[in-house]
């Protein structure tokens, strides 16, 4: 009894427990099988999630290292196919004034039409589409079991569609859609980065080309030249942008009179610079090869040569062309629309040498004549582009020709270079250093 008393209840309890366990065993095996199955599912999901996380990491990494737009689109399509477990994935990118970019993985999986229609960025426009076997939205040219399309905006005028076609198994479920949205978000950033890089590269290329053009243009304009006896000449030309439409040149050739000219192509920038170079070459050539290089005749020939080109581009050029004749101490010149040109005789007041013909390129003929002018000791000729007299201050008041004349008169006893420097300094002070137009000034002084 004591034994019983001692152990009886325990044994009874144990027995009772055993009995209970024996009775519940089939149920437990079934639960365990279920649990094992669930565990397998969870393990598979975990592996899937790890794969997806790895693929997302890979996507982020490759997106960061991909600066090229096409490479970025290929990466997006490849990773979308892998992550969403579909037979084919694509990205369609619509940008203004460019053909639609369509990149898919694998290549040539589906047709690439109709996507511009989906790229509607209005607020109420559909953002996502689910495709079914009979879906009317199927314009891919292949059988579609299922598909998911997601539209996303990169910029207000740049839109893309991410597409996933034909799941390898099953249908698109909620996690797939969440994942597709996440891929679209990352794709949006990656495409924006690639576009910014492309913009920066284009900008850098343009700046390099402009710097090169600036250098070439500066090289075209002579710094020094052999001058006739007792003639001093100073000249400077500063474009408002990297390159400009102003030009000047001097030509000293043994069998020709010393020639000098200043021109101003209407407008600024690249087209003006190109026409400036053509006009300068044309004048040089006429001066060098014409049997009697008469100023008015030279400008008329140049006009005949270039009228068609100037008409095609809708521009014109003003030119003042002069020659110094040492034997007679004279200047001979012709002026097609150029202003201001200021003549300051040693014994008189400054006066404008006005044009007598419209600029080159306006009409198919010029009206200019060759004029003669005394050019002896202490006489001064100043030719500038309109960037000087039209330089305006903050009140919109222009520097004007009268102030130019006053400056030249004040400095009439200074050197040619000092007259140039003084004029530039006065205009800069007046316009508070703001240069609105190309500025060219040539000063010729008889010593």
């Amino acid at each position, binding site marked *: 009894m004591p034994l019983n008393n001692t152990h009886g209840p325990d044994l009874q309890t144990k027995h009772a427990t055993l009995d209970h366990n024996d009775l519940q065993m089939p149920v437990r095996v079934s639960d365990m099988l279920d649990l094992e199955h669930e565990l397998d599912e969870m393990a598979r999901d975990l592996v899937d999630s790890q794969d997806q996380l790895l693929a997302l990491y890979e996507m982020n990494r490759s997106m960061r290292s991909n600066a090229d737009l096409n490479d970025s689109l290929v990466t997006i399509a490849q990773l979308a196919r892998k992550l969403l477990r579909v037979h084919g994935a694509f990205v369609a990118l619509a940008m203004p004034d460019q053909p639609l970019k369509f990149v898919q993985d694998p290549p040539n999986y589906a047709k690439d039409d109709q996507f511009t229609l989906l790229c509607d960025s209005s607020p109420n426009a559909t953002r996502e589409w689910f495709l079914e076997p009979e879906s009317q939205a199927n314009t891919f040219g292949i059988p579609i079991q299922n598909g998911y399309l997601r539209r996303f905006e990169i910029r207000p005028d740049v839109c893309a569609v991410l597409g996933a076609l034909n799941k390898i198994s099953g249908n698109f479920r909620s996690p797939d859609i969440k994942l597709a949205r996440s891929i679209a978000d990352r794709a949006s950033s990656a495409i924006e980065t690639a576009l910014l890089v492309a913009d920066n590269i284009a900008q850098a290329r343009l700046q390099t080309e402009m710097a090169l053009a600036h250098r070439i243009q500066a090289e075209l304009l002579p710094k020094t030249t052999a001058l006739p006896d007792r003639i001093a000449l100073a000249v400077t030309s500063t474009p408002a942008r990297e390159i400009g439409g102003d030009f000047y040149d001097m030509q000293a050739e043994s069998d020709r009179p010393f020639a000098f000219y200043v021109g101003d192509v*209407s*407008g600024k920038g690249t087209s003006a610079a190109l026409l400036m170079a053509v006009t300068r070459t044309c004048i040089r050539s006429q001066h060098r090869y014409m049997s009697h290089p008469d100023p008015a005749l030279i400008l008329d020939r140049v006009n005949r040569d270039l009228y068609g080109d100037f008409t095609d581009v*809708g521009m*014109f050029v003003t030119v003042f062309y002069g020659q110094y004749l040492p034997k007679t101490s004279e200047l001979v010149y012709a002026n097609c629309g150029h202003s201001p040109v200021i003549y300051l005789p040693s014994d008189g007041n400054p006066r404008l040498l006005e044009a007598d013909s*419209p*600029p080159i390129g*306006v009409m198919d003929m010029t009206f200019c004549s060759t004029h003669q002018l005394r050019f002896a000791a202490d006489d001064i000729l100043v030719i500038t582009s309109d960037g000087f007299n039209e330089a305006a201050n903050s009140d919109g008041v222009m520097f004007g020709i009268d102030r130019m004349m006053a400056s030249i008169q004040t400095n009439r006893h200074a050197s040619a270079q000092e007259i140039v420097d003084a004029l530039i300094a006065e205009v800069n002070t007046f316009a508070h250093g703001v240069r609105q137009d190309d500025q060219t000034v040539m000063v010729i002084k008889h010593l």
Partner: protein
Amino acid sequence: MQIIEEITPEKLTLRLSGRFDAHETPQVRQKFTEHAPKNALIDLSGVTFLDSAALSTLVQAMKNCRERGGELTLANMPQPVRIIFELTRLDKAFNIVNAPDAP
């Protein structure tokens, strides 16, 4: 710059006012491209300034009208604008009048 446009089968008339410079020239070019007029009149009475880009636009418009056998007339130039035309001798190239309703 403000542009008032009148168009009839015979003529395009533009009345310009304000600053006529490189920023405004595309609008004027557009009017000439759109209507491709044989004859045109541009009233410049309200123009306070015009630059070389504006002059180029007017020259181009004049050439286009003449190619079609017509003419571009510039009317009512204020003194500062007239001075620019005189200095560049573009006054010799254009038909310039002082009556706003000139043909």
